[in-house]
């Protein structure tokens, strides 16, 4: 491939400082949640409460990544729902498989 003009031929818009500030704010929130999870891992007793908190915090982080980084919130509503609604099936999968796993535990041990 031939190396083309090193200068941009398109109209370059100025930096959108507000948007960039929002990106760094989201990054800070993600980092803060991760640090909180870290502290909880070493200070709280292991059990169903801690595990539920971990999973809720993880879903919270996932929400930030999908909405702010992947801009899903800015997409048209039909696209937004066609991505989010199918994920409801996963709720059932978690319930079904965790139940199955605990039943195997009871039978085996």
């Amino acid at each position, binding site marked *: *491939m031939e*190396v*083309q*003009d*090193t200068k*941009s*031929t*398109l*109209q*370059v*818009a*100025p*930096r*959108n400082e507000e*948007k*960039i500030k929002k*990106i*760094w704010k*989201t*990054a800070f929130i*993600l*980092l803060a949640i*991760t640090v909180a*999870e*870290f502290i909880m*891992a*070493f200070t709280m007793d*292991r059990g169903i409460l801690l*595990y539920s908190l*971990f*999973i809720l*915090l*993880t879903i919270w*982080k*996932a929400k930030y*990544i*999908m909405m*702010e*980084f*992947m801009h899903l919130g800015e*997409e*048209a509503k*039909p*696209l937004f729902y066609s*991505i989010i609604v*199918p*994920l409801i099936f*996963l709720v059932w*999968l*978690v319930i079904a*498989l*965790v139940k*199955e*796993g*605990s039943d*195997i*535990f009871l039978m*085996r*041990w």
Partner: protein
Amino acid sequence: MSAHSTAIEVSSKRGVWGGGNEPLKASYGKLMMWFFLLSDIFTFAAFLISYLAIRVSYPAYAGAAETFTGSNEYWPVPELVFEALPFLHGVHAPLIFVGIMTFILIASSVTMVLAVEAGHRNDRDDVVKWMLWTLLGGITFLSCQAWEWSHFIHGTDNGSLLTYVNGLGQNVTETVFGANLMVNEYGPAAFAQLFFFITGFHGFHVTIGVFLLFLCFYQAAVGVYDKRGHYEMVEKIGLYWHFVDLVWVFVFTLFYLI
């Protein structure tokens, strides 16, 4: 209008889904990337939820952290398995290394979204700069994972005394070092199998991602996107890269925290 006209009349009554427009207001490539990612979400979710199911089917380690020894009778506590650092042999640093890895991947996601922002503005210099940072983050993460795997496979100095059924179907009792698909010193065989399979599949995605990032970086740098008139490719590859980060967030919680 003349009687011979063959043009389809477009009236405002046709509605959003009547054809001739983009109801989802996204290009073909971006839509397909989203639906590919949706299917990939289901694949990873199936793996991770299976991990959860198998984990609850084993007893958890209940003793004090100081007296922890690996056994195939119970599931290990992650902070007692993943506690090593490169160059610092014998230092007990629970979850520090994997914390650094998480930080690197989130940071590379941030630089990626900054590249996408620069792409919206057609700013070639900024796109190239942020793509290079993202690429660096991706390669660093992969290198960390290679070390993590290597340490997991080779194991600790002391190993664990285990009784297990070997490949020939014999019952053997011996000290096991590290991990393979048959037996591992940390916990039940399923623990290492799931670790290799799920982090391996994620690492495979990261590897593909690094190739795509390089492609995007190169094309941006030589002016392909300028010639094309838009930087949408940065956005599409960005979606994939954020997805890799998204999956890691769940892998981190399930493997290293729970």
